[in-house]
């Protein structure tokens, strides 16, 4: 086969080069077929999803007879209900977010944010943090690219904080496990922390605490290879969403299952209300403690949320549990070590401090509210 490729059609975001009509999967050849197929898939998905609980109960009853509070069977039931449920939600949301992300790239985000008024830039930066594809291993080149292109430091931080903390996987799982209200509050408070931290860093004028060599760099423009083709066809966007599913779901499923297994263990063996005294609403000190424990820890959202669910079911307060989760996914030791290359210690300290305080505040807020 003679590869015929035009460099201009290859972008950072498309997995496949310009698809030839006959190289497309059958389902993508006509919009009608695609819409019909998608509708059919969603109906099937919904039917399966709504019957998982009954199915898990049936299987467990078949295996062990009536559960009657026995720890092992209830742990098993928890696992065979939650594992497919979480994986199904994850697949759907990662696909959807993947398609949305095909419209964004760090380069485009940088262009949108460059030269923004410092005060009007924080909110869009935090919002773009959700939809821009970003991995914390790219945090440093991204930081340099933003700052040298004239994105204000605080605005850059609003982006860098929101990108890992307001996480689509977390959003999907919270929605699935706790309902839309909790998911919406998580989204709102996560954005709030990112914007607030950005504003604080702006107000403190910390530009001199960026390593000196950073401002000396002229970041090149990498337009053709890095910017997603704005003329991506809908087929390419679907393929992009699908490749996100393959990338992310294949990577995180062991963590998800491990998280659910730990959750199942807690669910079966930890007595009801054991955690109420330790992590309940009345134990105010548990919020800062949870954040303190969570900051150096790192896990992806997919692994931590089933544990959060199990903690909640044993009497831990929602605010405390969410604060723990946000601290684990939003701030991590590896990311801080990477960022140390471009940030001097005072700025690192302010970054961690402001975000941690923000999360503690959110924890208290949830505990008081719910």
């Amino acid at each position, binding site marked *: 086969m003679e590869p015929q*490729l035009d460099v201009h059609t*290859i972008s*950072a975001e498309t997995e496949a*080069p310009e698809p030839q009509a006959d190289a497309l999967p059958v389902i993508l050849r006509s919009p009608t077929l695609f819409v019909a197929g998608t509708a059919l898939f969603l109906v099937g998905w919904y039917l399966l999803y709504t019957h998982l609980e009954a199915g898990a109960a049936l299987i467990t009853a078949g295996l062990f007879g009536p559960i009657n509070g026995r720890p092992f069977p209830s742990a098993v039931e928890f696992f065979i209900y939650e594992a497919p449920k979480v994986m199904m939600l994850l697949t759907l949301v990662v696909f959807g977010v993947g398609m949305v992300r095909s419209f964004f790239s760090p380069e485009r985000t940088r262009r949108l944010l460059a030269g923004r008024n410092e005060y009007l830039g924080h909110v869009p930066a935090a919002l773009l943090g959700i939809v821009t594809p970003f991995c914390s291993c790219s945090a440093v*080149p991204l930081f340099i690219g933003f700052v040298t292109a004239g994105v204000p430091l605080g605005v850059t931080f609003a982006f860098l904080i929101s990108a890992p903390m307001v996480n689509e996987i977390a959003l999907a799982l919270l929605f699935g496990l706790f309902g839309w209200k909790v998911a919406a509050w998580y989204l709102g408070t996560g954005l709030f922390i990112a914007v607030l931290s950005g504003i604080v860093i702006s107000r403190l004028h910390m530009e001199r605490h960026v390593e000196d060599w950073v401002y000396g760099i002229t970041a090149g*423009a990498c337009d053709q290879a*890095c910017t997603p083709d704005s003329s991506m066809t809908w087929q390419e966007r679907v393929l992009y969403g699908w490749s996100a599913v393959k990338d992310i779901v294949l990577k995180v499923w062991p963590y998800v299952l491990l998280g659910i297994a730990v959750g199942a263990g807690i669910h079966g063996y930890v007595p009801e209300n054991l955690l109420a005294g330790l992590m309940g609403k009345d134990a105010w000190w548990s919020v800062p403690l949870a954040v303190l424990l969570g900051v150096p820890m790192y896990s992806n959202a997919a692994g931590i949320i089933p544990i959060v669910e199990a903690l909640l079911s044993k009497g831990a307060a929602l605010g405390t549990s969410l604060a723990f989760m946000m601290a684990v996914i939003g701030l991590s030791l590896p990311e801080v070590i990477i960022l140390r290359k*471009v940030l001097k210690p005072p700025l690192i300290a302010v970054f961690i401090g402001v975000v941690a305080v923000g999360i503690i505040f959110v924890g208290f807020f949830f505990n008081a509210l719910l």
Partner: protein
Amino acid sequence: MKVEILGVGCAKCNQLYDLTQKVVKNNNIPAEVVKVEDMAVIAKYGVFLTPGLVIDGQVKAAGKVPKEAELLAWLTR
């Protein structure tokens, strides 16, 4: 020909490095393949999403591991 693989320790960066080595070797392409881990250099190329692939100073791909056929086409152009 100089081929630079931009990126620090991400799984895809190593994947891209290995794939490029393989393509170069299998097709007897006279190219030198090097890893670039200096953040300043990566930023200078304007690459935010690693791995980045740079051939003779020109960024060919960022944020993904290209398919073998694409890679071969770039390397033999």
